[in-house]
């Protein structure tokens, strides 16, 4: 079995240059060296390393040897998102960034017993220049099943870059309710009735407690919106709710912010082009691009952040790897695996630190 796995790994490495290619917006060059004590296998290159890079593009960091450079600083250009306060560095943004990362951890197990990869060391450098998509790298193989494995000290930076702008209560009053309530002031009777039900209508009850910083104040539910009432009784903010204002058949509220997801998510969830979905408040909605009407719910995300080198978030005590990947990623004394939001994470059972991120084959 060990030899079979080694052979599979060899095949995997043959495919690795393709995996190392950037995504079209940058040039990246990487070199990596892996060292391990286990029986020789080209998949050693999955090992871990240190990366330093400058980048403009989304994923060029993954193409750098096995030392994935993380972004410490990023100054992204305008995001592909629109709406309220959608700023940040989405994957498609052009900008300049500099990052340094360190990774110390073996890649995820692909075999059993002696076939487990050891620790490697690598160095990667990436220089991104807009407009070109060439990359060259040595290193980083995969597990032979085309899952992309990376060790990134910065965690899922692409996702995090989007997370901030994709959440938040919109200011003001929804246009429809502005017409319904003169001056965006719900009737006093309705407010009084609702006062006894604030627990239900608080952001916490709706599952938005962790997404919105300010849970204080009075909240009110109407017409599919969670509304925040200001001290003057006027609607001062709102969230269109899943199944309510953001239900199938409803058009996307013109003034509600959303964000574009990283390309991996677009691919994993089968979203199509950015005009065909909206991502907001940890839910991905499929849209009719012509009418912006919601046609279905494409995905729900937990909002939990898994960052390599950091402890696994709480709430993942049970093995939950997708059925089709259980023969590859299963818990053992040296590694455990957990799924979240399209990725499988390798976790050190002793320290409970996240060791690596595995992109699942599509």
């Amino acid at each position, binding site marked *: 079995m060990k030899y079979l796995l080694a052979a599979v790994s060899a095949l995997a490495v043959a495919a690795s240059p393709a995996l190392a290619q950037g995504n079209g917006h940058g040039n990246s060059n990487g070199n990596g060296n892996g060292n391990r004590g286990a029986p020789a296998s080209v998949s050693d290159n999955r090992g871990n390393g240190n990366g330093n890079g400058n980048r403009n593009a989304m994923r060029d960091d993954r193409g750098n040897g096995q030392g994935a450079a993380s972004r410490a600083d990023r100054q992204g250009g305008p995001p592909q998102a629109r709406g309220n306060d959608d700023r940040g560095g989405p994957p498609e943004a052009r900008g300049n960034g500099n990052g340094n990362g360190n990774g110390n951890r073996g890649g995820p197990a692909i075999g059993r017993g002696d076939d487990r990869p050891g620790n490697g060391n690598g160095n990667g450098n990436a220089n991104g220049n807009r407009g070109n998509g060439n990359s060259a790298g040595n290193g980083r193989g995969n597990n032979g099943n085309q899952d992309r494995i990376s060790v990134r000290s910065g965690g899922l930076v692409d996702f995090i870059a989007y997370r901030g702008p994709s959440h938040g209560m919109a200011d003001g009053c929804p246009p429809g309710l502005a017409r319904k309530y003169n001056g965006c002031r719900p009737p006093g009777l309705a407010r009084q009735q609702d006062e006894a039900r604030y627990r239900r209508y608080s952001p916490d009850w709706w599952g938005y407690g962790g997404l919105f910083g300010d849970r204080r104040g009075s909240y009110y539910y109407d017409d599919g919106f969670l509304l925040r009432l200001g001290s003057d009784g006027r609607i001062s903010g709102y969230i269109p709710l899943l*199944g309510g204002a953001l239900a199938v058949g409803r058009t996307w509220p013109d003034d509600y912010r959303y964000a574009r997801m990283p390309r991996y998510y677009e691919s994993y969830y089968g979203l199509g082009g950015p005009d065909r979905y909206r991502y907001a408040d940890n839910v991905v909605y499929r849209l009719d691009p012509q009418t912006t009407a919601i046609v279905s719910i494409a995905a729900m995300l937990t909002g939990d952040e898994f960052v390599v080198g950091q402890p696994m978030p709480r709430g993942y005590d049970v093995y939950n790897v997708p059925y089709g990947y259980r023969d590859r990623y*299963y818990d053992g004394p040296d590694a455990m695996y957990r799924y979240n939001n*399209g990725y499988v994470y390798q976790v050190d059972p002793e320290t409970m630190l996240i060791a690596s991120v595995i992109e699942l084959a599509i």
Partner: protein
Amino acid sequence: MNRTMIALLAAPALLLAGCGDSSEEATEAPVAVSTQTLAAMIAGDSDISAVSQLLSDAGLQGLFDGNAPYTVLAPTNAAFAAVEEALPGDDQRAARVAVIREHVLPGYLTTADIEAAVRNAPDGSVQMQTMGGAPLTFTLEDNTIGVTAADGSHALLQAGELLASNGVAIRVDGVLKNLDAQ
């Protein structure tokens, strides 16, 4: 065959069925994983038709038809009646969706997975995150798996999970969300 695969295939409802042994040596008849999607399996289960209807009304079926795995703790029709009574009509559909969202877990969890995790936990309880933002806590209660929400709502897992190609549905006898208007 690795341990996980054995656990998956070896009668995931062992505990629920009262057999009590979920070790990898278990030899009970395997529970096949269907080639159907989770959406299709939920739609085909008459015991959870109320949840299925809500998923359909809210456009959530597509969520369980796709590539990403989810596990649904689906309240039985008898249990979900409390939701429909407290939050009736189209007006309250968003609230019902908020309720069901807290029954959706990331990934592919079988009852055997949950049972194994609980048995291995030092304090006999494990937590799993939900899509509603609040975690659920699983414990063993007289040889049955119990689940408790952060607000204290409680249910028991029922036998006969639905193992779909892209997720799992496990029937529960209660609603894991406080419906009281306070």
